[in-house]
């Protein structure tokens, strides 16, 4: 309920949802670099797959030679050959 009200308020007031609702922001530069903001934790990390937990679901990045250039509490920069990005929304 609270989430829905905040979402509606952000829509009405034209506020950025990543700041108000903590929604995940994914920025890609070609298929080699990706910056993910507002993630919660790392679920899985391997050479061909990276799975992250976010506020409203999961993000799965698949590719080859995936590396974490840097990561901190806010954002993470992923490099390598990115083939596929999948967003999985939390049920309920």
């Amino acid at each position: 309920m609270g989430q829905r009200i905040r979402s509606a308020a952000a829509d009405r007031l034209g506020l950025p949802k990543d700041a108000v609702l903590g929604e995940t922001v994914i920025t890609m530069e070609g298929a080699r670099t990706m910056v993910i903001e507002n993630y919660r934790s790392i679920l899985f990390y391997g050479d061909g797959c990276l799975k992250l937990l976010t506020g409203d679901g999961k993000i799965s990045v698949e590719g080859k030679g995936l590396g974490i250039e840097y990561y901190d509490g806010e954002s993470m920069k992923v490099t390598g050959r990115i083939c596929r990005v999948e967003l999985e929304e939390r049920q309920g």
Partner: protein
Amino acid sequence: MRGYLKVILTGKDPERFLNLCRNREIELWKIRAVPGGCSGQMTVNSFRKIREPLRKAGMKIRIRKRCGFPFFLYRNRKRKLFFAGLAAGISMLFGLSFFIWDIQVEGNRMYTEDTLIRYFEGLDIRCGMKKEQVDCEDLEESLRADFPEITWVSAQVSGTRLLVKIKENEALSSVPDMDPEPCDIVAEKDGVITEMIVRSGTAMAAVGDTVSAGDVLISGRIPVTDDSGTVTAEHTVRADGDVTARTGQTYRRDYTGWKTVETMTGQERTGLTLRMGNRFFRLMKPAEEGTAWRIWEEERQLCLTENFCLPFWWGTVRAEEYVTCERKYTEEEKEEIRKNTAEEFEEKLTQKGVQIEENNARIIENGSGFSIEGTAVLRESIGEPRRITFPEMPAAEENDRTE
């Protein structure tokens, strides 16, 4: 400057370890997956805080490489001479930074850089002097005073470079003073008048007249006549006008019949040049005695940054061997010289604003050599002012008049 470690992490749960590091603000970067775990880089401070996350995640850490300046110093701690050399080098750089090692002039068009640098040397401003001895304001004032065409100067010492920016006046710096004395316009050289405009004075020649050098073209004397046409008085003015005439000019250039030809033998030597202050070293294979070489050098100053120049110059040198021989000019070469001489003559006159109607040059053989002789028909301004001189009156006549 700060050291960091390249590490390999192995164990059951690398993801948990990464999350624990994130929560404890332990810096880890450039993480790559490796069989059995992952590799990454971390600071020394982070490494000291890593024990608990390792234990919780069941991971083991192995240092692969220690990088950075602190580790470099530690590795080389026994190399005392190396550190002595490093300290000496830093001290030398520090010492050299108190002097001027390059003088750069920007914005000059009328005055060459060499002229200005020679002028600076006259003011005791030269490469190798102490920076604190350079008085930029004094230099600016001197430049403005001694070069009236320079309208704006900015001198500044930046690093070890003295940068002088100038702006030159593009218009005339002063209007030439007009001579107010009455004068005639006389012919500067012989010719036939083609155009004539009189602004002040009396025309003494007309278009089509043939005039000789010194003939009065526009007189500054204006006669005043009475009703009967008799001259009763005479006013003198400063004659003014444009007189263009068709004139002739000859030119001649002599050549010996022999031409010195330099033929390249194909032999080449290359090397390096080094200059430290006034000391010059050329690292190149020495030439055999009795051979002649043409040498090209390219020199660059060693600069640590754009404005931190040092008194060291380095560059490359290339030498090509040649032999000289003398032979007679061929007919084609003579023809080429004839054409070039005529073109040079035309170019010089065109720059002065003279129109050329005809220009004929010919080759004249004279035994041992040859000459290029040319005649040209020009159309140019031939009027020049000449002051009117009044004949001195005899003393008796002067007395008669006063009576």
